[in-house]
């Protein structure tokens, strides 16, 4: 097997037709040198000796991916602590009522971080929150729905930002903030990470029952 894999590596490196021929012929030889009943030799198909045999193969070039198990619990990435000269993990939160402005601004922040070589760990969005504005009627006690407002939130997670770069970064962000968009920069905590998941009331009920 070692011999076969080393032959394949040589093919990868040099990738010439002659070697392919040599490889296929060597493979054929290997097959024939094993104890195979001669009836099986007739099943050697002719095109395997073609120089272009296997020319479209690419699976062996891809990295080996293990099949993903669905039951894997999503682990939180380790939150780095702040050191003397660098911040730890910061969350830049952009929120507002106008989705185009919020998204464009968060994309601007992301591109700006890439340009300044600040490491962006993650860039995610929280679910949209719908607020109904209810107005009291003039002549009655009933409230009617005046309007529906949707609040959008986008997060850009930054890690290891140098403390000397921070004032410049903040100033550019503040000066380019569009109207109607709120900017908030806070430290990333485990509670922030857990707030992204949906609450599971049945599981919590069962755990409470177990503990009681």
């Amino acid at each position, binding site marked *: 097997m070692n011999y076969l894999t080393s032959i394949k590596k040589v093919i990868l490196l040099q990738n010439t037709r002659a070697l392919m021929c040599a490889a296929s012929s060597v493979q054929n030889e290997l097959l024939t040198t094993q104890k195979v009943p001669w009836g099986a030799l007739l099943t050697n198909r002719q095109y395997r000796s073609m120089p272009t045999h296997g020319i479209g193969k690419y699976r062996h070039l891809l990295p080996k991916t293990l099949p993903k198990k669905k039951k894997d619990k999503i682990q939180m990435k380790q939150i780095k602590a702040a050191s*003397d*000269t*660098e911040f730890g993990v910061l969350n830049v939160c952009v929120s507002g009522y106008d989705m185009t402005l919020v998204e464009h601004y968060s994309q601007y922040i992301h591109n700006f971080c890439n340009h300044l070589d600040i490491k962006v760990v993650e860039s995610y969005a929280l679910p949209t929150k719908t607020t109904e504005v209810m107005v009291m009627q003039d002549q009655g006690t009933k409230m009617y729905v005046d309007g529906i407002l949707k609040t959008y939130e986008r997060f850009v997670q930054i890690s290891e930002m*140098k*403390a*000397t*770069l*921070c*004032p*410049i970064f*903040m*100033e*550019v962000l*503040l*000066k*380019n*903030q*569009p*109207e109607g968009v709120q900017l908030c920069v806070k430290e990333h905590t485990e509670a922030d990470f857990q707030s992204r998941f949906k609450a599971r009331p049945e599981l919590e009920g069962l755990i409470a029952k177990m503990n009681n």
Partner: protein
Amino acid sequence: MAAPFRCIYRPLWRVITGSGRLTVGMRNISFTENHFSATNHKTASVGSPWTLHGAVCLQRLPVISQDRNPIEEEFSGLMQQMELERSLLSDHELRLLEDAARMSRKQEEDYDSDEEEDYGDKEIVTAQDLEDAWEQKLKQFHPAQRSNGDKLDVSSSERCLADSLVLLIKQDVGSQKVWLLPQVQWKAGETLRQTAERALAHLPDVKATFLGNAPCGFYKYKYPKDIQKEGSVGAKVFFFKAVMCSPNHLPLEKNSFAWVKKDELKDFLTPEYLKQVNRFIMSL
């Protein structure tokens, strides 16, 4: 220690030609990173002939977005038109069309109201009525003025709402009155950022947030020959950036302070000072 400071300190190294003096300033700044450790840092060279000052570059951020160029206006108009033409009808517009169709069906002779499905209470309030009510509400809303024109002079902080303004103060330096960024001399035992905060405290009622512990700029000047004593050759000023939280009027004398844009700075500051200050003030 050199590596993390690469970004800011490159300009400083270009400015300072003397070799040993920089270490004093550097040590001050490195300890201000943890602002809760205001311990006495080891300022090695006690006999430095340069006095240190901390100054604050207080900025009022732009309140509204800038006006668009003619090209940008045209393009935004074109994009809006294209989006409108490509979009689907919304719920409200569908309702408008349905109401109009129902109206036209009502006018016909062989109209049977029992055939209508899902009539409900849509007859009471049609979509057109809703739209009219909304239009009325919009007319009652008066947005604030975008530009106050030239009525406001340099000392008001509500001047150009689309640009960021910097606060300048007329201070006594030596014997003359000079326009400067607010600065105050450093006292032993405090960090340079605290010096800058003190400089800001001299102007009462101003709430500002400092953007960081690292200074953004530097300026050094020598005293004139007659004032130069044995100990002091000149002064070094370190600038810190701060952002004003709430707009308010400074209760100072009329001519002693000004809010200026970046291109107006040259009317107020001396050329040498202006050259250093221009490096860290962004014209965004």
